[in-house]
């Protein structure tokens, strides 16, 4: 029915709230917001029983005011009325969250995004709203905007890679644009909820509640060695004993033993306090690694070697006693995104000469930043999951370790 017909319907039956609502909707569609508002509020006032109708009226009246710009108190009030009518529906929370985003009241934005997500699965009652996807987006926006910390970046990352809803290319590109602007997460940890996404499940993965590495380095080691227990490692550049550490998971959940080297006294002492395995506070360039491994009675085959000493990584690699010790899995941080490419090339040559295959080159922590190569010894190349052997010139860590998005 057109506006004229709806007006007639209303006038012949003026206390029929459904006809009044239809009239308001038509005014709304015709972008005559003021008239629509009058009939929405009148309808909600007159209706006694149908809470869904009242709820819709409050939301749509709020949206009509929002179109008029700079009536934020009024928009807020109407949407809050809607929440008071049906507090456990998602739509009003979504629009309140959206309102918080528009007015940069990020706590309102976050709180209502979270509430909307709590109720996102309610049966549709015919209100035009974009659904779950936008709630997740608002949650991420607000989280980032409130504190500007890593947590917010991670939410945007999750929107892109861990979402539970369908999205389209333009949405993905929009999120990528945001991440390029605010920065990609410094680290993305594995959680038990990622199990079905992981490309190379290994024995015991179901026991992994979370990992510690920045970009799944520890999960890669376990995947190559099928969740080996009581393995061994040499970790050069340990850093924090847990945060972003590549051996914490191996030690705590898989009973590995090993030696870690850390030049920072503060980090080394912290490591000693909180971890059971050996930590040595020293400059890696001053260590005779053959002597070290001998004196620690390490077997000639060690499961994992990590070299991450920033600018000195290549010098450390040159000093490795490959003639005497074999490492099943090696991760070398070349930081090609910021250091000379010659370092990367020399490292690969050293590894090739020592009997190693590069299975994932140029691991990157955002799609265009390459910082690590991951190798396995030729003796075990046939034993590792084939999905981990990639010939790609670079490997964004998520795409390398995880299956496609849901």
């Amino acid at each position, binding site marked *: 029915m057109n506006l004229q017909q709806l007006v007639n319907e209303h006038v012949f039956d*003026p206390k029929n709230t459904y006809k009044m609502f239809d009239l308001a909707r038509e005014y709304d569609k015709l972008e005559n917001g003021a008239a629509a508002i009058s009939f929405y509020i009148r309808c909600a006032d007159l209706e006694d029983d149908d809470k869904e109708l009242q709820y819709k009226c409050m939301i749509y009246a709020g949206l009509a005011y929002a179109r008029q710009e700079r009536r934020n*108190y*009024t928009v807020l009030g109407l949407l809050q009325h809607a929440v008071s009518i049906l507090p456990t529906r998602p739509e009003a929370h979504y629009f309140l969250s959206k309102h918080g985003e528009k007015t940069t009241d990020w706590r309102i934005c976050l709180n209502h995004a979270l509430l909307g997500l709590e109720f996102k699965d309610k049966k549709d009652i015919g209100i035009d709203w974009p659904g779950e996807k936008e709630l997740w987006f608002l949650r991420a926006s607000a989280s980032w905007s409130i504190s500007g910390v890593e947590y917010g970046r991670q939410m945007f990352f999750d929107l892109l890679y861990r979402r539970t809803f369908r999205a389209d290319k333009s949405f993905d590109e929009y999120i990528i644009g945001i991440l390029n602007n605010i920065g990609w997460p410094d680290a993305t940890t594995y959680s038990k909820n990622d199990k079905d996404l992981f490309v190379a499940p290994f024995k015991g993965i179901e026991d992994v509640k979370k990992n510690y590495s920045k970009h799944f380095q520890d999960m890669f080691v376990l995947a190559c060695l099928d969740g080996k227990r009581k393995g061994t490692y040499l970790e050069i550049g340990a850093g924090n004993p847990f945060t972003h550490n590549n051996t914490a998971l191996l030690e705590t959940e898989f009973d590995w033993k090993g030696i870690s080297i850390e030049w920072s006294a503060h980090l080394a002492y912290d490591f000693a306090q909180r971890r059971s395995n050996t930590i040595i506070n020293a400059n890696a360039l001053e260590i005779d690694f053959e002597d070290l491994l001998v004196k620690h009675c390490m077997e000639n085959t060690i499961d994992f070697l990590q070299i991450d000493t920033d600018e000195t990584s290549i010098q450390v690699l040159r000093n490795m006693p490959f003639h005497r010790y074999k490492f099943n899995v090696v991760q070398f941080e070349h930081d090609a995104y910021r250091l000379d490419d010659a370092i990367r090339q020399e490292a690969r040559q050293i590894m090739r000469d020592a009997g190693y295959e590069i299975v994932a080159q140029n691991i990157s922590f955002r799609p265009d930043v390459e910082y690590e190569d991951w190798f396995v010894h030729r003796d075990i190349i046939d034993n590792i999951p084939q999905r981990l052997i990639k010939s790609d010139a670079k490997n964004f860590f998520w795409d390398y370790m995880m299956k496609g998005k849901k």
Partner: protein
Amino acid sequence: MHDMHLYGLATFALKRGGKLHPITLPSELTGETGIMNPSIYMHNGKILMNIRHVNYTLYHSEGKKWPHQFGPLAYIHPENDVTLTTYNIMVELDENMQIKHAGRINTSELDTDPTWTFIGLEDGRLFSWDDRLFLCGVRRDCYDEHGKGRMEMQEIDFVDGEWKEISRNPIPAPPPDKTYCEKNWVPILDMPYHFVKWTNPTEVIKFNIDEGTTETVVLDEKNKRKMPRDLRGGTQVLRLNDEQRITISHEVDLGKDVFGRKDGHYVHRAIVWDNDWNIVHHTQEFHFMGTQTDPVTGNQFHIEFATGMMFHNNKVYISYGLQDNATFILEIPGHVFTEFLERA
């Protein structure tokens, strides 16, 4: 009259062959804020109507269930704009009350820097005298910094493809001209330069447009009728027949809710005068499209304002605004209007 008292004049008219025409304007012209107080008038064979467009949208919770933070009745302006700004939009209508053309009246040549926050000519009634087309309304933006208001005749014409203000003629109150605000004087269509300033008792003012002076030509305090409220100006004053003139006036109850916050409702009443300006008949109070009835008092809570009336092709057209937000033209067959006048 059962349906009129229950549901309003619009329902009464439609059930007897009338029509209600909703008037919408493009959002590019209005920004979707209130369009109200339309004044319909036929000029040189063209059906014209002035619509007041404001920078606010009224919020009225008639049943008070869902009030604004400021109360059940609130004027919602842009939060960074303290003005109440009025624009006048002139529309030309066809015989079916469909808009043929709509455009804002260009007042830029005569506008001055406002001295108060109510800007523009408000509640303009459309009419012509001596073949000159006028809007008359109240202006409050040029007299002082405290909102002094005076009626004004604004001559308009369609020039170079747009409606334009040609002249601006402030109308002083009759001597001693000391009042704070004059508004809702309504033009007497068949008496050039005469207005009904007040309806009960009826006060008729003559305006000398050349000299810019006014004088009271009719006022008899003894003629005041006992009415529940003041009768305020509504539509133009039209000839009903050789002996009588008619207007639709309005009345206002500015109540408060239980928290002392502003509320209000409007009613209308048809007033009929004889040629000596005696009120010889009036209807009961009525509304057009009210829906919310107070179960205790029986009051209808709504805001409506009729500011235009036209007799054409044996029909009566009353133009009115609803809640300052919407504009309607009620078309009533002549005999139905007569029935309404006689029985209401």
